[in-house]
């Protein structure tokens, strides 16, 4: 008993990822057992632990030039590549060993000898404990057991089934790389490595989830990221105690700063170039196996309004588009509220001709404006939800029917005023201009609308005030959410409403990076001009 505990402690200090996993579970005594020298016993133990699972494949064979040794390979039948097993494991073992005429000094009951002499694969490791063996087996490895050995060899074979590297549907760009992460986290990390080919790029692995045992990676650039931030990320990830991480959203919800806030404090993306750009600003990315969505912390409010394309295109239109996004967010949250407040409480603020037009449109409408607005927004939410889940052809039908019924017929029938249709559709379109804040925008829209219906402009201002107070108090991994506006940072404002040219963005976000990683190599002296540098000026 003491020996088990002792070994477990030693083991866990060697591989803290496994240790983390084990601490969570109620320790199963059987699993922490070492492997036995007997092949039959080991196979029986595996079978027992997997509860006689039918996809467990066990193949026993003899090897050695005189077929003296007995071995077995054990794998989960659909997770391992059978061709590779045959070619790279079984064949060399069974026939390669024949070629070595004298094996007097080679003892194949020692798994090291087998690995060195007979198994021509790169990705293999020794396992000595039953639970280690099971973990590897369930992760898709092929286990090579040899009779008489207290250790086994776990060989990773084949490729995992995974999607090709496509352009992410949610983050399509006009200009910029069209690659996106896929569900295989190793591919995702490789994609980031291809962007940042520097030893500075650190990748740390963790395993989270008692049942799912999901591989989770922390990725950061060491010379830029604040060590305190990295430590905080580790700490928060360590705290997660859950059955399974099926998507990075699970992690997000466990590590958020303010789980009750409607504003997200963890950003996510499918694009490797975006992750690269963010970790180069000192942020930390968290990638989980099984999902293309990487998390990036800390998240600032202004990040929602920045797009990768802002940096890939020249700064002029990019700046205008950024302002358009800010404006869209304001429209999407305040549009219907402003309409209700103006038409119900502050009619004197509407220009006379417009007021007459609105009055004409509302002439036959039987509902109060607030109810009208709620009905329309709600109908739009239904349409959106129905359209998203359905297959494309059906989804289009829903869209068309909805547009005709809601936009045309309801106005014709005198249920909704035409101006309200315009307000709600403008709001709906605007809400998609800022994807990262669509959630908060939708919720705020309802809240502000209710406030406008109760107390008009006064209510809306009150709501805005509370929202602003909340935003100012919000933090994401220690970074103030509203940076660089509150607290004000002049250098940070260069990449706020207006995106200054790249050669002027010589400072990384001060609130995020480590204290000595503030300056980029790019700087104002890099302002392009034909007379600078040794360039050839002849045309």
């Amino acid at each position: 008993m003491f020996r088990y505990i002792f070994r477990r402690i030693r083991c866990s200090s060697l591989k803290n990822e496994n240790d983390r996993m084990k601490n969570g579970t109620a320790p199963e005594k059987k699993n922490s057992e070492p492997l036995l020298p007997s092949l039959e016993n080991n196979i029986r133990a595996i079978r027992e632990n997997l509860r006689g699972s039918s996809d467990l494949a066990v193949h026993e064979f003899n090897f050695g030039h005189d077929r003296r040794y007995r071995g077995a390979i054990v794998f989960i039948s659909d997770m391992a590549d059978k061709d590779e097993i045959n070619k790279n494991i079984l064949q060399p073992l069974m026939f390669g060993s024949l070629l070595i005429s004298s094996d007097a000094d080679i003892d194949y009951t020692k798994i090291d000898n087998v690995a060195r002499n007979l198994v021509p694969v790169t990705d293999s490791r020794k396992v000595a404990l039953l639970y280690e063996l099971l973990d590897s087996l369930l992760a898709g490895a092929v286990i090579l057991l040899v009779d008489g050995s207290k250790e086994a060899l776990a060989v990773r074979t084949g490729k995992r089934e995974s999607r090709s590297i496509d352009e992410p549907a949610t983050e399509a760009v006009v200009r910029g790389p069209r690659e996106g992460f896929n569900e295989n986290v190793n591919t995702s990390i490789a994609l980031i490595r291809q962007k940042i080919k520097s030893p500075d790029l650190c990748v740390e692995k963790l395993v989270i989830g008692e049942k799912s045992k999901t591989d989770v990676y922390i990725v950061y650039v060491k010379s830029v990221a604040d060590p305190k931030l990295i430590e905080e990320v580790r700490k928060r990830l360590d705290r997660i105690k859950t059955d399974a991480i099926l998507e990075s959203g699970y992690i997000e919800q466990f590590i958020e700063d303010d789980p009750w806030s409607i504003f997200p404090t963890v950003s996510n993306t499918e694009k490797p170039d975006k992750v690269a750009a963010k970790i180069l600003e000192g942020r930390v990315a968290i990638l989980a196996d099984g999902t293309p969505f990487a998390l990036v912390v800390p998240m600032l409010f202004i990040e929602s309004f920045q797009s990768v394309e802002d940096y890939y295109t020249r700064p002029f239109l990019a700046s205008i588009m950024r302002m358009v996004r800010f404006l869209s967010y304001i429209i999407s949250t305040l549009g219907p509220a402003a309409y209700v407040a103006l038409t119900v409480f502050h009619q004197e603020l509407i220009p006379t001709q417009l007021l007459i037009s609105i009055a004409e449109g509302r002439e036959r409408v039987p509902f109060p404006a607030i109810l009208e607005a709620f009905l329309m927004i709600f109908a739009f939410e239904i349409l959106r939800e129905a359209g998203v889940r359905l297959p494309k052809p059906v989804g289009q039908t829903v869209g068309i029917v909805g547009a005709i019924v809601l936009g045309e017929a309801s106005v014709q029938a005198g249920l909704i005023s035409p101006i309200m249709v315009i307000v709600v559709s403008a709001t709906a379109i605007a809400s998609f201009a800022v994807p990262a804040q669509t959630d908060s925008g939708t919720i705020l829209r309802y809240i502000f609308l209710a406030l406008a219906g109760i107390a008009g402009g006064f209510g809306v201002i009150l709501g805005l005030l509370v929202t602003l107070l909340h935003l100012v108090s919000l933090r994401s991994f220690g970074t103030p959410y509203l940076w660089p506006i509150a607290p004000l940072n002049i250098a940070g404002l260069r990449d706020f409403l207006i995106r200054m040219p790249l050669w002027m963005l010589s400072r990384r976000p001060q609130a995020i990076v480590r204290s000595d990683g503030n300056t980029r190599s790019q700087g104002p002296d890099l302002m392009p001009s034909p007379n600078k540098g040794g360039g050839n000026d002849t045309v």
Partner: protein
Amino acid sequence: MILYKKIYVFILCFIMLVALSGCLGGREINDLEIVIGMGIDKDKDTGDILLTAQIVNEKEAGGASGEGGGGGGKAYWNVNSIGKSIFDAARQITHKTGNRLFVSHNQVVIFGHDVAAEGLQKHIDFFLRAHEMRPTTLILVAEGRASDIMDAKPETERFPAMNITKLVKTYGFTSHLYKVNMKDFATCLMSGTSATFAPLVTVSQDRENKDVFVPGMAVFKNGKMVGKLSHDEVRGVLWVLGKVESGVVIVPSPDGKGKAVLEIVNAKSKVKPEIKDGRIIFHIKIEEELSLSEQTTRENLATVPGFGKVQEAAGKVVRQEIMAAFERSKELRLDIFGFGEMLHKKYKNEWKIMEHNWDDIYPTIELDIHVDSRIVSNDLLRRPASPDEGGE
């Protein structure tokens, strides 16, 4: 469980708050009677106030929705009611409209001639006091009854009130009148010494279709309408006040065969009062810039001597206009130029003596008018569109 119950109760309260509240003074647009113009007359029988409110008729206004529009109905509805005061009448009107009037968008207030002659001081109070009223509402005086003006259906505009607003707001093209709103009117009224103006409005009856137009301005003394100024007289006043924006000056051409028509491009004025040997003299210096917009003679006026002669003639016209206004004001015994205020500013002590019999002193003052007119442009033509007489 208790927590959940609390949340449910809270949500329920919130829903009830939205659904059941009377909406803190909110009013749906459907319930509004949007007033865009008001006319105030004296009722012939009782002598009370007859209020005519022009209300937008949403059903007939025929908006962009297409259906229901047109139908030949009027886009507006002139409702009237009689009351002891304007506010009384405005409340009495609810017996006809079913809703109280929404006057925030009132564009114009037209006073009937008999009301204006009686004095506007007592009526102005309501318009300044009511919080829904805008101080920028225009004031006009009808030559006849205000309700007739409200009934004259304009050709292009949908609403008579809007049409009248437009007539007044475009005063800059002629400088034959200028717009006066509630605030201006009240300020003038309160200052005491200077005269108060308001554009006149009338309906021409010469054709089968009634046209509303502005024939000049009404002049008030102590809130009572005492006379009218013609277009030229109004401009005479505006020259002195430096409020001329643009307009047309017509002078006979130097050869006497036609006319030169000039447009005012820019005008400035400077008035300096002087008391010398017991005489009160006002030195009025006017600088105007003109452009030659039209000529009906064959002689080319766009030459240096031609311009010189035309400029001189234009200066004469301006002088005539000012003098005409001055003569008119002497007739009315009313300081329409605001000379009294100017004198007050420069000669404080003397003014104290004159203040009380300024009306008597006013007709004795002298004007020293100096007009500096310059033609700055001859527009697109360098010589008249006529066969060359070999003049050059």
